[in-house]
């Protein structure tokens, strides 16, 4: 027990990584699913353990191979990284329980164990991304997670061959992002001689104004922005999410971009926080705010005109990433906190929305547009009800989680930028009601087009679906845990700037 507690930071990464190998060797698809469920559950327990351990200390530092930090790889769990760790481990657990029904439907049975191997690898990569405090190790995990998600997206080719094109686009664009990131890391390493984040943060301000630092920062941020699908660089995301197998869409939509946004916050505040004063970073901040506003509107408008329901949700993800980035780029304590609150809530919202939408498309056995799902809500009331809850949460109705994040975001925007930004946020939220209503109208009010097909509820997925809908309401009523941990995360992130 003591050994486990001492090694929690590495165990959250190594458990899914090692178990993915076990799953790869298992021959039966049910066994592989059960092992994956257990693995993600254990990972979630380890993350909870880290959360409770963090109540007493500010920071858990873990030295891999007993090498002292600036020389060896260090894993750091602090108030910031615990938030994505908990999101990824909990959502991946829920998504794994949810997944088997859809895997059996969409992937040939003999490939399911290997799919779960990739699934766990992707989770391990994401967990590694958010635990590591070494910029090069981060690159390795970035590659692990994105390569395995590319393969997962390509698994959708049994349903639609376009999945292969989507996966290829994702691969190429993602590889460009990773290359940019590693060029940035190389530039920083060439002038500081270190890869450790806190060591970089100490050494960078000493260099004074230096063009290499600026170039390194630019490359790193641009690379991660591609991975996080920030507005003009989001092009891979809609088709990757739309053509991936249903359960993969759920996992990726709820976790993958969140980890990248966390890295953006890490890079700009933890690593470059000390150099904020040196460079006129206000211009950059304004530029990123502009990008987030563009993302909010472009994503929403693209979603309004979209017919394919999974693509619609993916476009709306682009908009929601805009909100998160807006909060984080405000660079005030309440702004960053609101970004993190929305990071949590959006994972719950999008996870729930994708779950209910793919559940409704389950019996149609083809790609679902809004209109092929006409009137399906009446046949699947529970699924539809969860969909409504998550949808209202997306729009930010009071008593749902989305309301809390919008509230804090608007407040932070008002405090730092003024009324115009609040107006833009509220306007884009109002626009999101349009596509939400479009879906609700088609799913509930339109006449039933699928009378001849046997469409009924899927009881196997009640637990994850209802759980996520419940969490959306619960965090709308009592958001203390989320807000408190987000505010302490924001404080410890901004410590770098205020030094």
């Amino acid at each position: 027990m003591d050994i486990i507690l001492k090694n929690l930071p590495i165990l959250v990464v190594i458990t899914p990584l090692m178990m993915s190998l076990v799953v790869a060797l298992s021959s039966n698809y049910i066994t592989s699913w059960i092992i994956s469920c257990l693995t993600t559950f254990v990972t979630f327990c380890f993350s909870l353990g880290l959360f409770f351990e963090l109540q007493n200390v500010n920071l858990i530092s873990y030295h891999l191979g007993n090498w002292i930090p600036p020389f060896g790889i260090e894993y750091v769990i602090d108030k910031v990284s615990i938030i994505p760790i908990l999101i990824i481990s909990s959502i991946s657990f829920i998504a794994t329980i949810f997944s088997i029904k859809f895997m059996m439907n969409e992937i040939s049975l003999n490939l399911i164990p290997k799919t779960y191997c990739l699934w766990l690898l992707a989770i391990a990569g994401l967990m590694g991304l958010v635990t590591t405090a070494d910029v090069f190790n981060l690159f390795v995990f970035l590659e692990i997670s994105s390569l395995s998600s590319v393969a997962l997206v390509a698994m959708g080719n049994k349903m639609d061959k376009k999945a292969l094109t989507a996966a290829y686009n994702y691969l190429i664009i993602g590889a460009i992002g990773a290359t940019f990131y590693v060029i940035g890391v190389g530039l920083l390493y060439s002038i500081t001689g270190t890869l450790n984040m806190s060591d970089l943060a100490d050494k960078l301000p000493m260099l004074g104004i230096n063009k290499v630092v600026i170039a390194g920062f630019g490359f790193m941020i641009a690379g991660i922005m591609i991975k996080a699908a920030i507005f003009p660089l989001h092009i891979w995301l809609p088709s990757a999410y739309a053509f991936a197998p249903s359960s993969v869409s759920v996992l990726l939509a709820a976790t993958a971009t969140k980890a990248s946004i966390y890295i953006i916050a890490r890079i700009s505040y933890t690593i470059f926080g000390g150099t904020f004063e040196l460079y006129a970073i206000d211009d950059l901040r304004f530029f990123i705010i502009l990008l987030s506003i563009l993302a909010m509107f472009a994503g929403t408008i693209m979603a309004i005109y979209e017919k394919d329901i999974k693509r619609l949700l993916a476009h709306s993800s682009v908009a929601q990433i805009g909100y998160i980035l807006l909060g984080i780029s405000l660079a005030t304590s309440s702004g960053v906190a609101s970004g993190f609150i929305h990071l949590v809530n959006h994972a719950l919202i999008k996870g729930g929305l994708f779950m209910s939408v793919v559940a409704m498309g389950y019996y149609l056995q083809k790609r679902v547009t809004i209109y092929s799902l006409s009137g399906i809500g009446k046949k699947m009331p529970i699924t539809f009800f969860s969909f409504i809850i998550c949808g209202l949460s997306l729009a930010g109705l009071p008593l749902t989680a989305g309301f809390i994040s919008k509230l804090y975001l608007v407040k932070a925007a008002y405090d730092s930028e003024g009324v115009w930004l609040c107006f833009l946020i509220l306007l884009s939220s109002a626009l999101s009601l349009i596509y939400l209503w479009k879906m609700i109208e088609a799913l509930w009010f339109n006449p039933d087009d699928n009378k001849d097909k046997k469409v009924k509820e899927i009881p196997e997925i009640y637990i994850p679906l209802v759980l996520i809908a419940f969490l959306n309401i619960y965090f709308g009523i009592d958001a203390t845990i989320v807000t408190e941990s987000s505010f302490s995360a924001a404080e410890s992130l901004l410590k770098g700037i205020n030094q």
Partner: protein
Amino acid sequence: MKNNDNENLETQENPILRISAKILFTPIILFGLYVQFHGDFGPGGGFQAGVIIASAFILYSLIFGLRKGHELLPPKFNFFLLVMGAFIYGFVGLTTVLMGEPYLSYNVLGSTKQSGQHIGILLVEFGVGLTVSNVMIALFNAFAGFNFKKIKK
């Protein structure tokens, strides 16, 4: 047709190629092992050695046909070895965790720190070599087999 593979029969019947492949097979693997076990002293290590060892198997498949290659190293066993390599790596790390030290701290593996580091890196590199060589072979099989299936249809 001798082989159902429908591969390039000319190369397969060419005695010079067949005999030189047979002669070269063992020295290539031997050289791979040399690179493998000198990784901790000089240039080399698991990655390079893995590729060199895999090249012996790939040469064999190229000359004698994919079918013979599969007989030499069945794809299932290939996949098993591929996974086992990564396992070895992970288990070395977990062993040190069980011995009460952080992940991958080789010091505790031997009686002295130095021998511990030596044993640790050798085991890890062995795992890396195993995985890399089998990944290379699997990649070759995947691309070579792809063509084969298409022609069959």
